[in-house]
């Protein structure tokens, strides 16, 4: 079946990674009509906003986008392209599947959990002030509706995917009003799903638990800042950001993305591991109803990783981005 999807190739190594991912998805039997859009450093260098209006509009029209790694210019006044996309499209659920992959050695065997991070509230609303010459203030907000929809997304995911337990991560012992509202609202939503165990934990303890008792956790639902930190912690546990896929879901649109940076020092060297973008593409295929193709790609990728003969530098190998893609394609045939 044929689909349309917006592609943001990204900065640095993004275009070469996306080229490899296009080839693999194309070989999976799914025809995607890719519609190019720009964002990130490339947009800024072309004299445009970091996320041009036309990029927002085309994603809203097509409803699905895959995004390569983007750079955010470092300097005064520069906003994050990723956060801008999430805010302007109201992509409220950042979903990060965290799973150890075959052949990728980590101390965390059997790691298999999914993080649901609220993507639009908390401290990330960028409401910040100098209140005096020597004091600054950032405003954190949590709303009932915003919490209800992320909690419901996590619970629904658990129900549909046979997950047994959802853990709400917060800091309500200290931030009794904001995090207290988040926890209270999550509990209320969870009560609608009696077959799923609901627990909660404070974020600092959760970090410790994740690196000592990771098998106890199944689905995590949390606020924006904690989710940002936990997602990268867990990406490290599964072997690094180069392996970790991500997706951002809104009411109508979804943007699938690599969570790693654009690795500009390797631009044009055909060196970087495309797995994170590829697995994000797999999530996109599942979202499009192409589960068979998604499974085909995942199985081939896992076979290549398990065999270990063709690996990129981050996994101790010497293969380039395109060779790694070639090997995955070869396994699919």
């Amino acid at each position, binding site marked *: 079946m044929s689909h349309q999807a917006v592609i943001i190739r990204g900065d640095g190594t993004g275009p070469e990674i996306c080229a490899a991912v296009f080839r693999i998805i194309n070989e999976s039997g799914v025809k995607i009509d890719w519609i190019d859009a720009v964002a990130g450093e490339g947009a800024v260098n072309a004299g445009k906003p970091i996320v041009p*209006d036309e990029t927002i509009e085309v994603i809203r029209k097509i409803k699905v986008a895959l995004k390569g790694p983007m750079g955010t210019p470092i300097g005064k006044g520069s906003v994050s392209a990723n956060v801008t996309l999430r805010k*302007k499209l*109201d992509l409220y659920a950042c979903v990060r599947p965290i799973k150890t992959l075959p052949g990728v050695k980590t101390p965390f065997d059997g790691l298999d959990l999914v993080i649901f991070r609220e993507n639009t509230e908390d401290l990330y609303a*960028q409401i910040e*002030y100098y209140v005096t010459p020597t004091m600054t203030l950032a405003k954190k907000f949590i709303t009932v509706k*915003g919490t209800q929809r992320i909690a419901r997304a996590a619970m629904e995911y658990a129900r549909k995917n046979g997950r047994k337990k959802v853990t709400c991560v917060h800091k309500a012992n200290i931030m009794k009003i904001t995090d207290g509202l988040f926890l209270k609202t999550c509990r209320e939503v969870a009560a609608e799903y009696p077959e799923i165990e609901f627990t909660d934990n404070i974020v600092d303890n959760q970090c410790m638990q994740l690196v000592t008792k990771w098998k106890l956790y199944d689905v995590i639902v949390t606020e924006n800042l904690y989710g940002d930190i936990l997602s990268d912690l867990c990406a490290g546990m599964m072997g690094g950001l180069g392996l970790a896929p991500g997706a951002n879901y809104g009411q109508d649109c979804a943007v699938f993305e690599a969570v790693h940076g654009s690795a500009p020092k390797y631009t044009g060297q055909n060196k970087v591991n495309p797995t994170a973008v590829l697995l994000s593409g797999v999530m996109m295929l599942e979202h499009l109803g192409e589960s068979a193709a998604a499974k085909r790609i995942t199985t081939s990728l896992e076979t290549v990783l398990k065999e270990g003969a063709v690996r990129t530098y981050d996994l101790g190998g010497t293969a380039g981005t395109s060779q790694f893609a070639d090997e995955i394609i070869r396994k699919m045939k």
Partner: protein
Amino acid sequence: MKLVGCDVFVYSPNEVTPDLPKTVGPLKLELISNRGTKVWPAGVARLDYLADEWRCRYTSEGDQPLPHQHKDLDALLQTIISQGHFWTRVQVLWLLPDGSRGFSQPY
């Protein structure tokens, strides 16, 4: 630091953008945001739901220092109250010594 305006946070339920005065003395309504995203003047951003508190930013033309400082802000708040609006918080807006804004822009 130079005082150039204020953010007035206005309570307005049922997803109704508050209809606020566009100009009061030297202060002009620059933007309204909801959940940190600009909703007035309307841009491409579209929110699936709107919280019941709205950030309404009033600033002077060209970020000039307010001639009467807090008296200008008092007059703005009195006007807003007299029009039946309920404000929840007010945050003054400063320019930093280098002339840049000491407050963030919404998405």
